[in-house]
């Protein structure tokens, strides 16, 4: 079957089905020659075959179908009467079509099948010329043995013989098609034997059976099933999976060995059945990839680029519905790669790369997901350019940008209103696209990320769930209710006992954070989001580390219950409108549990609660859209004075024991994570001498370009939304002015001045000129400072 392309294969399957129907229709038509419905149905079938074969350049097939169609159309219009002779001619045509299809299937072409006899018989029947007197039918007779029978049968036009005719006429139809077939290989096989053995009365069925094994390789291996039926099956399997979960859970508490064994078998079989039914909906990704070579070729020509498309893993399967949903985003990514990614040949040669660019599509299964990559070996994306563009578009402040890792900066291309195309081309570069791609992928529960090495290429990676209906999920409990979190968003689980939690979970005003391997993880308490009282009172903290839209946050839940496969059930519009739940599911014990929409949760919860620089990325969109509101960290500096520090200049909050503060020259420093951290005491810096020396210093760490300074305050009070406009302009050292926050006059810290007070060389481009001990690369071991990664 190799070499047959999809269209031909589909054509064969369809035609075989139609021909079977045609046989029945024709025979039935003889009994009821006036049935317009049947005639129309037959006409349509032949018409379709004619049209498709013309399109596929199977000329002989087209020719014979054309003549058949002619006759059928006249029969349909009532211009001709259906006589047994004509029926035979039509059946002959059907067999001839069959032989041609068999030949096409066996060796990809029409082979040596001779259509002239069938055409001649049809033409004769059409002209109503008594076949025997024309030379053509004579020729036909030499090849088609029982034609004479058919002709004899034609003579009486009485209804009675007509009824008998099929039995006689059918062998006529059956045999001839086989005789002229000179198709090499297995195609005609046993068929000649059938008419030979029973020349008198071979039945339609016997004839059919005899021929089938040889010629139905394509048609027999597939069956058309209504998608609705598959959906219904899928639903039932979902129910079965739930019941299975329930039984397995129940049996887990039993001791009866037989019951345990039976439940294990049930478990296995249900899983296999689930897999099997899911497979029925699976289609290879090649279905959508197959259109891409053309896209790449045309686009390459249009852009004057030489691009070769390579595909790996084209047999990777995913759910039909998902496949449809991925089609457009994928096409968009491919167009993007050709348009922006791959350089024109001269530029490539100049860069020492082969003139021909390579665009690679990869698909594979990976831990219950399908990973699809679109990779090019083009110029890559320069994070600096992306960053600059984002700042230029007002999507981000330069300051926030400076603290983002290159990988994070690249993800900015998914922001609405972002486009790096230097020129708006016909193809892309209008600043819409990547955000739409992202939205589309997320709408099916997938994720998207981009990687790039400047000069080497770009790789966009999609992660798509295998199917939408059944997803692996983590079930958790909060305030006495259970919720499910799709595992695709889950990164890890952290459980802290009361003692550890007290130390590791830090509160900043209303926002709590947890240090996960040195990085600040903003925590979101599910109970707070849901507006329910948590029923965890022992101080233990369970954190589900979730990732959404490139941001990580920790969801604090009461307890983790289980991981299980859940069946996603739709919920009514009212539930969707709440914007926290993506659906509901029925758990093993029959209870309904809501499925948390992690993306919505992140959007909703991270805005008011996070103290991380992720916030500044969040603000990217907010800042562009609405009024210029800035989040401020409020701190007391002693003497009743409060300062506000823009939150996006805060990298971390730390506590430092005062005895660890050392002096270098006239400055104070503290050793911190293997680096030297210069300190500025804000009270002294701003001339507010508060209480005496404290044991533990509250420290705000600011990091930029691998350098950090620590700003010591008396107490961290809160995080507020402050308006950036300054109400009064107090001309004082180290302050930008003052504003009213929460009914109290609050000073706005000139962060730059404070930092310079701690490390005069902080902003200097060359670290080497800074005074020894304060400056160069803080990391002793040569590793990059941990702050830069935060």
């Amino acid at each position, binding site marked *: 079957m190799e070499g047959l392309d999809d269209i031909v294969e589909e054509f064969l399957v369809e035609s075989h089905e139609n021909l079977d129907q045609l046989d029945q229709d024709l025979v039935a038509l003889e009994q009821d020659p006036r049935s317009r419905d049947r005639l129309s149905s037959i006409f349509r079938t032949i018409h379709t075959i004619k049209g498709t074969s013309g399109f596929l350049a199977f000329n002989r097939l087209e020719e014979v179908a054309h003549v058949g169609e002619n006759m059928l159309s006249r029969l349909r219009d009532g211009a001709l009467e259906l006589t047994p002779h004509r029926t035979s001619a039509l059946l002959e045509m059907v067999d001839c079509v069959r032989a041609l299809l068999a030949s096409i299937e066996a060796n990809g072409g029409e082979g040596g099948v001779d259509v002239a006899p069938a055409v001649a018989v049809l033409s004769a029947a059409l002209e109503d010329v008594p076949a025997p007197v024309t030379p053509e039918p004579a020729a036909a007779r030499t090849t088609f043995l029982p034609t004479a029978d058919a002709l004899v049968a034609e003579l009486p036009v009485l209804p009675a013989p007509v009824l008998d005719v099929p039995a006689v006429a059918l062998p006529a139809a059956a045999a001839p098609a086989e005789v002229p077939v000179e198709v090499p290989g297995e195609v005609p096989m046993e068929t000649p034997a059938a008419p030979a053995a029973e020349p008198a009365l071979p039945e339609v069925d016997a004839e059919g059976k005899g021929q089938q094994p040889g010629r139905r390789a394509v048609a027999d291996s597939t069956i058309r099933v209504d998608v609705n039926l598959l959906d219904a099956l899928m639903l039932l399997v979902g*129910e079965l999976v739930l019941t299975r979960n329930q039984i397995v859970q129940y049996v887990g508490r039993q001791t009866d060995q037989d019951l345990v064994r039976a439940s294990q078998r049930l478990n296995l079989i249900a899983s296999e059945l689930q897999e099997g039914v899911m497979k029925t909906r699976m289609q290879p990704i090649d279905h959508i990839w197959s259109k891409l070579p053309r896209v790449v070729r045309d686009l390459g020509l249009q852009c004057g680029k030489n691009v070769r498309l390579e595909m790996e893993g084209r047999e990777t399967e995913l759910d039909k519905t998902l496949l449809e949903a991925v089609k457009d985003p994928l096409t968009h990514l491919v167009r993007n790669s050709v348009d922006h990614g791959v350089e024109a040949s001269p530029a490539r040669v100049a860069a020492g790369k082969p003139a021909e660019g390579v665009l690679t599509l990869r698909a594979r299964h990976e831990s219950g997901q399908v990973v699809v990559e679109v990779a090019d070996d083009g110029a890559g994306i320069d994070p600096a350019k992306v960053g600059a563009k984002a700042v230029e578009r007002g999507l981000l402040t330069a300051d926030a940008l400076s603290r983002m890792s290159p990988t994070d900066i690249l993800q900015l291309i998914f922001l609405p209103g972002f486009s790096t195309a230097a020129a708006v081309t016909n193809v892309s570069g209008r600043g819409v696209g990547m955000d739409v791609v992202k939205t589309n992928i997320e709408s099916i529960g997938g994720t998207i990320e981009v990687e790039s090495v400047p000069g080497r290429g770009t790789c966009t990676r999609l992660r798509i769930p295998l199917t939408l209906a059944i997803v692996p999920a983590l079930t958790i409990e909060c305030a006495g209710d259970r919720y499910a979190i799709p595992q695709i968003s889950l990164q890890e689980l952290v459980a802290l006992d009361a003692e550890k939690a007290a130390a590791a979970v830090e509160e900043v005003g209303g926002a709590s954070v947890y240090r996960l391997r040195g990085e600040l993880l903003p925590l979101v308490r599910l109970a707070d989001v849901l*507006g*329910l009282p948590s029923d965890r009172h022992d101080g233990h903290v369970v954190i589900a580390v979730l990732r959404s839209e490139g941001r990580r946050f920790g969801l604090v839940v009461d307890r983790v219950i289980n991981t299980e496969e859940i069946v996603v059930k739709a919920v009514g519009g009212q539930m969707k409108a*709440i914007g926290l739940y993506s659906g*509901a599911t029925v758990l093993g014990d029959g209870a*309904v549990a809501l499925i948390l929409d992690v993306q919505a949760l992140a959007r909703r919860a991270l805005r008011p609660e996070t103290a991380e620089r992720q916030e500044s990325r969040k603000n990217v969109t907010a800042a562009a859209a609405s009024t210029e509101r800035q989040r401020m960290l409020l701190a007391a500096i002693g003497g009743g004075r409060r300062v506000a520090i823009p939150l996006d200049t805060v990298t971390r909050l730390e506590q430092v024991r005062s005895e660890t503060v050392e002096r270098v020259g006239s400055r104070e420093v503290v050793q911190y994570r293997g680096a030297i951290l210069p300190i500025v005491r804000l009270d002294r810096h701003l001339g507010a001498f508060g209480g005496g020396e404290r044991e533990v210093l509250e420290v705000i760490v600011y990091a930029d370009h691998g350098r950090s300074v620590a700003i010591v305050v008396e107490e961290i009070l809160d995080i507020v939304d402050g308006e950036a406009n300054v109400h009064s302009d107090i001309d004082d050292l180290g302050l930008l002015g003052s504003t009213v926050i929460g009914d109290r006059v609050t000073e706005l810290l000139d962060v730059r001045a404070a930092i310079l007070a701690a490390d005069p060389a902080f902003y200097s481009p060359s670290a080497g000129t800074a005074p020894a001990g304060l400056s160069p690369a803080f990391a002793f071991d040569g590793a990059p400072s941990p702050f830069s990664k935060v």
Partner: protein
Amino acid sequence: MSTALSSHPAAHAMPATSQLATFWLDGALYGVEVEHVQEVLRSQSITRVPLAPPAVAGLINLRGQVVTAIELRERLGRPARPAGTEAVVIVVRLHGEAVSLLVDSIADVVDVHVRDFEAPPDTLDGSARELIRGAYKLDGQLLLALDVNRAVGT
């Protein structure tokens, strides 16, 4: 409004007789068209939905199908059901989708005639007025006809 029934817009489309499945809610008798009612259930465990509108009591598992439960007391502006009393669930099917209503107790299916119908009494207050098509004057009892479509459209 309380006079001629023809003045009530809902009356035009009404057939002469119809069957209402009736139920009790806070001492009043209500009815919904029997063709909307799919089934009646008791002692269903309801999963609450935090942050949902107050009238959404939660979700119930109807043989594997997740169905929203509407607290009709809340919807009609009646006081909450006394603690310790269990609600009865009436599952209605509207536009192919199942929704359930929580009521106090279920009563009979009643044949009503359009001649007994009247527009909602003037005494009916705002929120309930929207959801009540009108009242059938039965012997010794008023039967309030609930507009199911509006009742579930929280």
